[in-house]
């Protein structure tokens, strides 16, 4: 299978937006201009871009604390996103959520959870709503390999298949659950084998291969939209840095580091684009435009006000808490 040029360009643009955003965030954190917890997605940019390229804007997404790539690829505006990460009143969540709790229903980002595995049961509820309302929407929930050993994963997989919900479980298998390597937390070779336990369709795919990843995503989306039920996609990728920004990752063996460098999705995607008759100049122009957008977003975020202290009494309930 090959990809048409529009889809490829779409995936490339989403991927590079994520990649340049991540670079910018790391540089802001390094320089001390930004002080917050940040979970870099370096190495996982392409997986999510190919997935989101197969969705409609109003499809639902539930992701996790390592989810900025998912949110950006889904379309959350960078200015609102960065303002939120920087704790500003203009952020997506008025500075009340932060990087681990990004919500932006306007682009379909319904929940970002800081609790491993908790997004899966919620994704079922969004999909159940779509099933009852027949609104044709598909829900995607992203999580890592580490989330597949928590009870919520198993309860949610069973329920999704039982009700044939229009939901896609996208496991971004980055081969580490926090500091623990896959083989040290799971005895089976592949997460995807677990799909069979629930009678669910499961697909294992190289998440760094744009063509294969998009094909897997598209098929799952089409099945869900056609009422054929959920899919578990195990997308193989690498987490190329520590658990959170600044965290040590010397526990990764040197051969693992060599392997992941060789599989870096960014140069691979660039090569694929050139194979498809895009010129490097065209690609560089796209990236330059994205960089300008990111700079403007950072400028917006840092020139925005901090939230008012009164905000702690708002949004607890519909009615404000008395002062």
């Amino acid at each position: 299978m090959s990809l048409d040029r529009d889809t490829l360009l779409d995936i490339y643009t989403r991927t590079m937006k994520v990649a340049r955003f991540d670079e910018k965030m790391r540089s802001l954190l390094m320089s001390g201009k930004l002080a917050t917890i940040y979970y870099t997605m370096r190495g996982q940019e392409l997986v999510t871009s190919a997935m989101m390229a197969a969705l409609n804007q109003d499809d639902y997404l539930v992701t996790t604390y390592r989810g900025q790539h998912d949110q950006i690829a889904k379309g959350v505006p960078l200015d609102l996103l960065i303002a939120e990460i920087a704790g500003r009143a203009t952020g997506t969540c008025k500075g009340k959520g932060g990087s681990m709790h990004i919500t932006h229903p306007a682009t379909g980002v319904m929940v970002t959870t800081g609790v491993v595995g908790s997004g899966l049961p919620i994704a079922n509820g969004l999909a159940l709503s779509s099933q009852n309302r027949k609104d044709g929407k598909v829900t995607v929930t992203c999580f890592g390999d580490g989330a597949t050993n928590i009870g919520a994963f198993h309860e949610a997989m069973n329920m999704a298949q039982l009700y044939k919900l229009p939901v896609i479980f996208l496991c971004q298998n980055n081969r580490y659950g926090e500091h623990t390597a896959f083989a040290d937390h799971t005895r089976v070779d592949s997460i995807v084998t677990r799909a069979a336990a629930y009678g669910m369709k499961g697909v294992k795919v190289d998440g760094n291969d744009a063509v294969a990843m998009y094909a897997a995503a598209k098929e799952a989306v089409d099945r869900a939209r056609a009422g054929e039920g959920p899919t578990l996609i195990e997308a193989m990728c690498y987490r190329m840095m520590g658990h959170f920004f600044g965290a040590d990752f010397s526990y990764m063996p040197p051969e693992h580091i060599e392997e992941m460098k060789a599989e870096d999705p960014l140069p691979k995607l660039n090569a694929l684009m050139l194979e498809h008759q895009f010129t490097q100049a065209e690609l560089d122009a796209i990236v330059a435009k994205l960089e300008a957008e990111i700079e403007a977003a950072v400028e917006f975020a840092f020139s925005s006000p901090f939230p008012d202290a009164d905000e702690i009494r708002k949004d607890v309930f519909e009615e404000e808490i008395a002062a």
Partner: protein
Amino acid sequence: MSEAETLEAVAPRAKKPKQITMVQALNAAIDEAMAADEGVILLGEDVGAKQGGGVFKVSSGLTEKYGEHRIRATPISEQAIMGACVGAALTGMRPIAEIMLMNFVTVAMDQIVNHAAKLRFMSGGQTNVPMVIRTTTGVGVGFGGQHSDMLEAWFAHVPGLKIVTPSNAADARGLMRSAIECNDPVIFIENILCYGLKSDDPGTDYRVPLGQAAIAREGSDVSLITYGRTVLDALEVAETLAAESVSVEVIDLRTIAPFDEATVTASVRKTGRAVVLHEAVRAYGTGAEIASRLHESLFNELKAPVQRIGGAFSAVPMASVLEQAWIPKKEEIAAAIRTTMDWKR
């Protein structure tokens, strides 16, 4: 014919309001809400027609009316039930999660505490979670330590949750409608021992507003503040003490959190004495919060320190003799009231 018999003959039963049990009241409220709003759905173990309409029959007849897509019988998966309700609620549906027994809510705490309660706040008000968590419990039927607990204090400590419990069938009907219509998550606690209680049927579209306590009996000497099944005990004790010329005002909170502080404070300001009573373990219970707030706001007006009565500090025991020793007793309630009456500064 006596006068009463004559009246009965002239207007047979027409003037007698129909009686309903708490189970019928809950069923009626959910039925009405489902008829009024397609977004109201019910998820829970055994709730469908195939399973007999729920272990306590609260969803009896609803599958036949609204279909299996709206009455979803679930696997025994409390996290999945709760999460699905959270997700559906985020899209504007009004799901009801039935968790058969309150102790089983503990296996779904993450979805309730980290998600249902917090998503409105953490999203800066972009989303909200209009769901009801229905659950039943109760001490006195020998179910033992894992099927009897009242855990309302756990949830009262979490910003973003409302907690409701009816003491009678009419309130059950009105509170359930209000809970379903609330735009925030509501934990609705039902007491197994109250399911058979009958009230005059308040009729269709009846609502009891959340956050509003009821004066279950007026009095002038002591305010006895309680909720749920212990309201019945409180009323009995009040009747007994009336014979001793102690006038007890019984307040049924109905909404445990956030509670109706205005009504409670006004009552205690009037009586100058207060006893807080609940079935839940006394230590660290909601009674401590209520007593503390009364001491903070009315310290100079109180004629005695606020007394607290609650369950013993152990797991709920099975053997009847132990269970009865565990649960707050009417003699204890009366003694606490007398303590406040006899207090000398």
